[in-house]
């Protein structure tokens, strides 16, 4: 049966990713006795939460064959705006809600130029990257905002059923993103646009609007990550999120989502974020100097893509 064969291949390529993660975990467990412990596992999950949340939004954008470089700066901007409100008279719940709303709006601003004005996503979001960062610095005069209400601390350091709150938020947002991609007309349109934009347009899919919404969703994801990060640091910093776009893109791509669009899933992105997180954590435990950590991280990303390319080229023949 051809059906069985196709599913096998799909399983293999998904399995391969999980396998890579397992191999990595085994190696690190052998190298360090502090690695394979419950507290370290939770630690890794908490560390990857911010990146994984951003990467969820990035996954949606990349499936349309787009890219969003502005997520780190956007995180900083909405982080300080929200913190500014929360340290003023605004109740924390409202400040957080506003953070999410502004994040989505700023994302939609990117999306407007990508979808309706048809400027290349790379350029639009590169502009966004500098504009949002500049605004964040201007708003705070370059200094962090602290003295936040305890609600932020609760998000950053609380836990439920022994699992840290940031991890719950990450899991919730992943499920939401998965649901959006798999079970809604919006998600279907996202895949269709990434796979064949012209065919999508000829099928009556509102391509411009859908594209704009994907960037709005990426903005929302960054804003959620901003709230978590603010809680972790117990302050909002205009320099937060520096280079976060690269970690998010790396998680998405290592997770098997194709930069040329049309293919990908949140599950892969989670594994991608985990692989990167485990590597970071392991190297810290092994006291690898931070300069070399960057080299190793880059090498692993390249290696993951090399393996993916080998698998997919074998599938084609």
């Amino acid at each position, binding site marked *: 049966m051809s059906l069985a064969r*196709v599913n096998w291949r799909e399983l293999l390529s998904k399995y391969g990713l999980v396998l890579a993660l397992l191999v990595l975990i085994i190696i690190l467990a052998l190298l360090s006795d502090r690695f394979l412990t419950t507290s370290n596992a939770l630690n890794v999950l908490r560390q990857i939460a911010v990146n994984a949340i951003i990467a969820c939004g990035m996954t949606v954008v990349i499936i349309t064959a787009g890219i969003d470089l502005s997520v780190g700066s956007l995180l900083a901007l909405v982080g300080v705006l929200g913190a500014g409100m929360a340290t003023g008279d605004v109740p924390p719940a409202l400040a957080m809600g506003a953070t999410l709303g502004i994040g989505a709006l700023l994302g939609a601003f990117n999306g407007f130029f990508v979808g309706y004005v048809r400027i290349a996503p790379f350029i639009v979001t590169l502009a966004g990257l500098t504009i949002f960062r500049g605004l964040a610095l201007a708003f705070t005069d370059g200094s962090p905002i602290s003295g936040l209400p305890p609600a932020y601390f609760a998000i950053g350091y609380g836990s439920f059923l022994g699992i840290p709150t940031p991890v719950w938020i990450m899991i919730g947002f992943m499920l939401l993103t998965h649901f959006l991609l798999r079970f809604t007309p919006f998600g279907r349109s996202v895949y269709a646009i990434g796979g064949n934009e012209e065919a999508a347009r000829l*099928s009556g899919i509102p391509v411009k609007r859908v594209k704009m919404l994907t960037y709005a969703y990426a903005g929302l994801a960054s804003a959620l990550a901003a709230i978590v990060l603010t809680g972790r640091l117990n302050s909002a910093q205009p320099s937060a999120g520096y280079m976060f776009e690269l970690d998010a893109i790396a998680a998405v791509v290592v997770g098997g989502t194709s930069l040329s669009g049309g293919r990908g899933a949140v599950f892969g992105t989670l594994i991608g974020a985990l692989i990167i997180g485990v590597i970071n954590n392991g190297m810290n435990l092994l006291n690898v100097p931070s300069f070399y950590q960057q080299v190793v991280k880059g090498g692993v990303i390249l290696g993951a893509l090399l393996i993916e390319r080998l698998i997919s080229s074998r599938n084609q023949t």
Partner: protein
Amino acid sequence: MSGVSKAYGGAYALRGVDLELRQGEVHALVGENGAGKSTLMKVLAGVHRHDGGTMTLDGKPVSFGSVAEARRHGIVMVYQELMLFPDLSVAENLYLGTERGLINHRRLLERARTDLAAIELDVDPATPVRKLGIGEQQLVEIASALVHDSRILIMDEPTAALSAVESERLFSLIDSLKARGVSIIYISHRLEEIFRLADRVTVLRDGRLVGTHEIAAVSPDMVIKEMVGRSVLNYSRKRVERGEIMARFEFEGPDLKPGKLELRQGEIVGLAGVIGSGRSTVLNALFGLTGKASWNGMPVNSPRDALRRGLVLVPGDRKMQGMVAELPATQNISLATLERLSRFGVMNARAEKSQADEWSGRLSLRPRDPNKPAGTFSGGNQQKIVVGKMLATEPTVLLLDEPTRGVDVGARAELYELISELADEGLGLIIGSSDTSELISLSDRILVFRHGAVVTELHAPFVEEEVVRNVTGASQLA
């Protein structure tokens, strides 16, 4: 070339074809779609290797395993899609790959000026190719073939995208090439051009040679007689009483003069015409893709607009415009009906599955496995998926552009059957096709397009030769 054969799988595309080319002649190659013209030329240009027969060049046997090898022997094909680098200058395009070491721009320009003057082509060699018109680009491409000392040029429908003035320049270039001893194989559906340019004409039908004639010894009607009557799928539609006028269209477009079209319920209108005649542009305009169009007085602004009002197009290029290859057939079929298949913003999986099952059943999708990615189906079944997607919207008017291009005979018969059924159900259909026998089998009426306007309207029963005569422009000749 003698006795050349080529088979794909079990099907012969060419059977024992002979072709002889003299130095400095323009040799026209004609035949209906699927006659084997392109295959024969691909064998000659080294794209495919022939299975049987022999080729000789200057008395020596040759066989080309690659385009590069054919080029080394001086044989070059000028493709319909241009192969130039738009941001490089004319001169740079001409000598790409021939210069070694550093490029001396001044010397390059000098050389280009001399070479262009030699073939009387008046183009500034310093201009970036992007800034030239499509016709001039084509001339440059031909010139670049000559720079590489080509002796045999193959041109496939070279005037398809050209204006009348540009075509004239091409013709005079061809004349000057002839004078230099270059041989040209000229493929065209436009008999007017062939009778003006060619020294001899070879007619192919069903992959076989029908005959080669001195152009002075034949008339356009004789050539048409040899072209038609190919053994195609013998399909004939039962034509019933047509209903009320359901749609009045007005349209105009980039290469399309303003025009009108009325469509009755249950009617199939065929659009005939060569590439670039406006045949395909009309369909795109009516669907809101290009130009302007109105349907019953209301403008059609976008495909989305057209779809909402029950007008759909099955586009001519299914890979580029029709399907999303990575998505399963099921999801392709539901692509135009996402809103109807969802409630409160959530897809109804059961409704989606039953819609896909319904259409893959009605269209006899093979293999009947709608969970496979659309790209893994055969051409004919891919087309069924695209048709199913559009029909799922329950349209009242169905536009089809080249509905059976690249579709095998079996699937073609099934599509014809479906098209007839749809007409019987009261849909109005407009079908554009370069396959004359397809239009004759299906249409109640055929509109022939030439130079962006309808020049003739023919009614069933049709005489194939009459249709072909109008399409090729032979009716304009003596």
